[in-house]
């Protein structure tokens, strides 16, 4: 789980509004194709939010884990290409590499901006709260339940998988060496895990039915998501403004 519990104003903000603001800012930053400046401003802004939300350290850690391998691949890819093309066309290798690296910089920054934006939202919002907020605002209840239930059963399923492997080992299953040996250990794990998951899905479905989940009409929510009546309007206004700005920057308007 990426979420880091902290009690700051960023944490307490309505998850949907938070996600909307970040998505809108990202859209505008990505629209400008002339250079890296809007992206750099956006990333700096997000780092500022991370400092305010006291999640700068986990943010930098997650960025290193997610973006660094991509950046390495991206640069190696460009360098290999520059080398091959330069050797083939007998061009000045340095000039070619510089031109290619220029392109990587913007692309790399775009990836960095996207990942930073989503991470800031995820670090400051429990995914369950995000799903709840969406459900309270009228998102399809079945969809929201599926997401919320999946979030909750991940640790249980992981523990179950470990228990199954332990049980199979106790019965003499040897996780062998080499590719074939490890591949053979897979079916004894997967069959019981999938079948028990199907079984529990059925039990959950029956429990939901018994509680009238499939009824139509208005529903009440156990969780309250505090927001003023103006906040949903504000979210739509932000999205509309971002879409207009995107269209303008792209020259469509």
């Amino acid at each position: 789980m990426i979420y880091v519990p902290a009690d700051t104003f960023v944490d307490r903000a309505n998850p949907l509004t938070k996600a909307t603001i970040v998505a809108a800012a990202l859209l505008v930053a990505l629209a400008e194709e002339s250079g890296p400046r809007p992206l750099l401003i956006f990333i700096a802004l997000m780092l500022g939010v991370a400092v305010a939300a006291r999640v700068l350290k986990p943010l930098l850690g997650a960025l290193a884990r997610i973006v660094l391998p991509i950046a390495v691949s991206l640069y190696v890819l460009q360098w290999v290409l520059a080398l091959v093309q330069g050797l083939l066309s007998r061009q000045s290798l340095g000039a070619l590499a510089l031109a290619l690296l220029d392109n990587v910089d913007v692309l790399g920054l775009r990836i960095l901006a996207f990942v930073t934006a989503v991470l800031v939202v995820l670090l400051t919002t429990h995914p369950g709260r995000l799903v709840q907020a969406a459900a309270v605002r009228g998102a399809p209840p079945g969809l929201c339940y599926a997401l919320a239930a999946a979030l909750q059963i991940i640790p249980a399923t992981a523990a179950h998988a470990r228990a199954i492997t332990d049980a199979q080992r106790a019965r003499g299953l040897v996780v062998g060496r080499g590719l074939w040996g490890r591949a053979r250990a897979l079916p004894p794990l997967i069959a019981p895990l999938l079948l028990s998951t199907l079984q529990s899905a059925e039990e959950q479905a029956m429990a939901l039915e018994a509680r009238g989940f499939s009824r139509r009409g208005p529903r009440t929510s156990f969780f309250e998501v505090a927001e003023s009546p103006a906040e949903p309007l504000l979210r739509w206004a932000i999205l509309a403004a971002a879409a207009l700005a995107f269209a303008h920057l792209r020259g469509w308007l």
Partner: protein
Amino acid sequence: MAIVKLPIYLDSIGTVLVGILAGPFAGALTGALSNVLAGMIMGPTLIPFAVPAAAIGFLAGWAGRFGAMRSTPRAVIAGMVTGAIAARISAPISAYLFGGVTGGGTDLLVIFFRALGYPLEQATFMQGLTVDPLDKVVTFLLVAWVLHASPARLLDQYPRGLAATGRVARAWSEDP
């Protein structure tokens, strides 16, 4: 897959299973939701790949209608077709959003195909074509095996699962 440490993803076993048992749309929804969820937990770069994941679930649903789980050759063909189509859908996403790389070991293949002179999107597609069909063949075979090993009591509740595997529903009168 951490326990057995294999160099394939096998991240769509659940998606394929739901597609087979509950149909194309349930499969597509499972694929998309599980990728969004994985993105929330492991890292946002997985979220755009909800699109090919949805396609995998949808195709698995259709493959089930054609009896993809009735025999090993059928499961292999269904896996290869699904893998190839998933690779085709992933390629532009990977190329335009991430410059063709994912930060994983398969990036070496993209670099290899780019060095051979293929354009970025084609190189990404060819990398997908090298890995995805194999991954989906193993996935389809595992799901077929699980379905055939599942108790009749369970499978009887899923008419689509019965159709996909060619198993016949147990008549109630046969019950002891």
